[in-house]
């Protein structure tokens, strides 16, 4: 019913130049049109730069104790103050942000990859392979993640103890983060296999792997990208939560969760110790959520941002 009405507006305005525009560019343009998303991206990139180069803002590092300034508020010498041990907070936050982003990117990225491969394989092979893989997946969902994390990071064998705590946390978070998406990818891929355009490609003689790559993955692609940004947020929050209750990152490693956890019971006496890492965490997760929205719009071919583009071009 609606498709006739929808297209009319565009037919008039279709006097575009005869150039082939790459799809990447179209998506990029659409993303850039969403102000909130661009702001989110800017904040995220800012934090990322801060985590890499923030160390140059101060002469102190996260290990050196300043015995003259123990538990002091922000001052010209220590821009964000110092901890109760006399370590510069700025240096700690820079380090903590880096660890958090690092964990987020690795866990978010890898879990999406695992779930895409796992989910697509289930849908593609079907039958017995599907049921066995689905059983493993369900079993993993049942497993109590928090217990495993606690055992792996604090108990465990001697060999586990020698690994840095962030690496251990990444491994454990990764292990528990991909199942939901994998199941989603499976059902999505299964319905895509039935579409006429997949059939059309099959009847054109396009090889199976190419169909998966060209038709299945891109159509799941937007979900995967969204899941990547969501996964980063999830991993950062999980890290904060685990570290807060003391089973995630362990000192001397620093992360935003460790900083927030360590400062909660003395908010009134050392407020900067609590609020600074908390703000950074909010900025980090908030900016990712803002980006997520813009990415969805950019990838969705039915989104209204096409319409907006046309009016913009006209006014130029």
């Amino acid at each position: 019913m609606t498709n006739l009405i929808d297209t009319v507006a565009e037919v008039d305005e279709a006097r575009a130049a005869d150039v082939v525009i790459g799809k990447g560019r179209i998506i990029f343009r659409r993303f850039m049109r969403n102000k909130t998303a661009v702001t989110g991206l800017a904040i995220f990139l800012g934090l990322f730069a801060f985590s890499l180069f923030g160390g140059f803002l101060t002469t102190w590092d996260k290990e050196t104790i300043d015995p003259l300034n123990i538990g002091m508020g922000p001052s010209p010498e220590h821009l964000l103050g110092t901890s109760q041990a006399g370590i510069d907070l700025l240096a700690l936050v820079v380090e903590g942000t880096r660890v958090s982003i690092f964990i987020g990117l690795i866990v978010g990225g890898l879990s999406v990859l695992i779930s895409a491969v796992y989910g697509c394989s289930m849908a593609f092979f079907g039958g017995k392979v599907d049921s066995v893989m689905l059983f493993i997946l369900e079993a993993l969902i049942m497993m109590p993640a928090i217990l495993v994390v606690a055992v792996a990071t604090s108990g465990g064998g001697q060999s586990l103890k020698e690994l840095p705590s962030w690496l251990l946390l990444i491994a454990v978070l990764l292990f528990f983060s991909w199942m939901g998406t994998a199941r989603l990818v499976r059902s999505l891929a299964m319905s895509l296999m039935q579409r006429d355009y997949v059939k059309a490609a099959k009847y054109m003689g396009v090889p199976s792997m190419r169909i998966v790559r060209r038709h299945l993955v891109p159509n799941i692609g937007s979900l995967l990208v969204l899941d990547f940004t969501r996964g980063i947020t999830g991993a950062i929050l999980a890290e904060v939560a685990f570290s807060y209750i003391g089973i995630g990152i362990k000192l001397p490693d620093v992360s935003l969760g460790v900083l927030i956890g360590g400062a909660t019971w003395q908010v009134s006496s050392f407020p900067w110790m609590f609020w600074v890492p908390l703000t950074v965490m909010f900025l980090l997760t908030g900016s990712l959520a803002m980006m997520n929205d813009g990415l969805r719009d950019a990838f969705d071919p039915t989104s209204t941002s096409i319409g907006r583009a046309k009016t913009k071009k006209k006014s130029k």
Partner: protein
Amino acid sequence: MSSDITTQPSAVARQAVERLRDAGLYGPGDAVLSVRDLNVRFNSENGVVHAVRSVDFDLMAGKTLGIVGESGSGKSVTSMAIMGLLPETADISGSVRFKGQELLGLGDKAMCKHRGSDIAMVFQDPLSSLTPVYTVGHQIIEALTVHNPGMSSRAKEARAVELLAMVGIPSPQARLKSFPHEFSGGMRQRVMIAIAIANDPRVLIADEPTTALDVTIQAQVLEVLHAAQEETGAAVVMITHDLGVVAGMADDIMVMYAGKPVETGTVEDIYYRPRMPYTLGLLGAVPRVDTSQKSSLVPIEGTPPNLIKPVTGCTFADRCPLVTDECRTAEPALLPVVDGVTAGGGAHRAACIKSGALVDVDAHRIFHAPPVPVSKFDGVPRDERATVLELKDVKKHFPLLKGSLFKRRIGTVKAVDGLSFDIREGECLSIVGESGCGKTTTLLEIMEFHPDQVGEVVIGGVSNKAATDGKTKQAMRKEMQMVFQDPTGALDPRFTVYEVLAEPLENLGYPKDAIRKRIMELMKLVGLQPDHVNRFPNQFSGGQRQRIGIARALAVNPKLVVLDEPVSALDVSVQAGVINLLDQLRAELGLSYLMVAHDLSVVRHISNRVAVMYLGRIVEMGDVDQVFDNPRHPYTRALLSAIPVPDPELERTRERIILQGDLPSPLDAPQGCNFATRCPVFAALPQAKKDKCLTLEPPLVSEEAQQFACFFPDGEIDADMLVVHA
């Protein structure tokens, strides 16, 4: 129709309408439903959509009004507005009066008193309009309970049985306890009609009641609607896009375009004396099943206007071949036609400033219908042309299994059962039949081209038995491509048109430059603007998307194109353009088509040969004119007679064969002739001859250019299954 004043759009006239309305004086007294100046506006992201614009009509008791229009023309919204079923966000103005009582502005509770008792509705999709968790009887009784709280439950049940019998459901008493899923689509639509007429409504609104059904079932349902109307004496509003369906049923027709009636009048006025270019075009765009019409169809170029923008001139101006500057200055009012031919009375109105000059004009000429394309193969006798596709005794049987742990085979579904035919160069073979007869399965079996296939498929000299390696298969794919039914589903929404068209070419390893060149050629070939290659499919209309689908199929220069219902998802005016394109491509490129379609008019127009399928077998095959003019198999006869013809006079007088029941499931296919259970000839046969039909399977015998599988091809038709409307 009412006084002339109501249709004048000027401010003075509006006031007059208001005055008359307040005095309760407008409209003839015996109109059950009168609609005046109905306007519906929706708010959307892009602005306010003016979906229905000043619709006026009067509906007399016992009469049928047909509302005809394409999708988006506002016909369904009009009916929903009358029923008060539009969402609260819609802005509705004007007046809808049922027996003089205003319905617009009534609250939901007050409206519920009218809905289902005074005004009832039959919806389009019978599959989703019945609740799956309640029995059919429960749902009919529910409709009765709501409006007759005092009725005893025994009386209600008796009434429900009576209603089911009235709509022709066998053993109604037992069927009351059945759930909707136990009924076929046609049966469910009958149940819907039974619910609608349960409380003897004065007005019955049928919104595309047969669009989702097969032709034979459509004929049955139309018959039921007709009977229901006679039984209850209700006035019927029949909403449809199919000019054939209303031709025999309606007394008056209202043609809607862009939310506004553009022509109204009696059926004869509209079909024989159209006075609005849009109506002319629509009538010319419909292929006819009853005559061999070897001229092109009338294409109406362009798309309907966007109703978000304010209307400045005639809404049809952009698509009208007769447009002049005058048309764009003001929207023409719906005025009585004055041409010296139309009988007076002012009942025939058209919204065109040139309506008086449109006497005896030829739609083909004014719409510049393309000349009939001539193929280089047209002069060559069939036997001398090369064979493009050959099927030898192709079968597809599905085992039916039962049991959860150990699967037992309890039967076989013979979806395709021994099919043999061939297609020569430059020819179009259509497979027709009801849904479930195996036509789509046949297509899929050909497309799969699997070496393990029972029977042999030979495409361009390559047999499927030899297609064990990828190379042979690839070679065959180059010879044969497919166009799908749903143009939206067949295009990857994430591909631009360029990518869609490049896919088959890339697959064959064309260099980049060649692909680019070929795509530009293809865009021109199918009549799309080459600069549209960067767009996504959702930025095109349905007809344009189907053109993209055709372009993709033609990309690799195949010899044979398989068309799966290529136009059934398109509007009539758009459909004509696509059919013309297919015709032209076949002639220019020397293509062969294998088409599956349920619309026999389209089949007659486009194909050279036709094969009629019933339960996995071909029951009749031959040259299209031969088969359509002189059908021998009773099934073909019934199928052809079920197609409504867009000609009211003919439609009212012709004999129709109404088949009993539905297509039996292929599982319990009878032993002898498959068709015996529904056969109108079989029913009239003496017992001795019946035995032959029940025990022996009729073979496909040839007679001239026609093959058919029936022992009694010229048998009398049972009188019970013949219907003539008088």
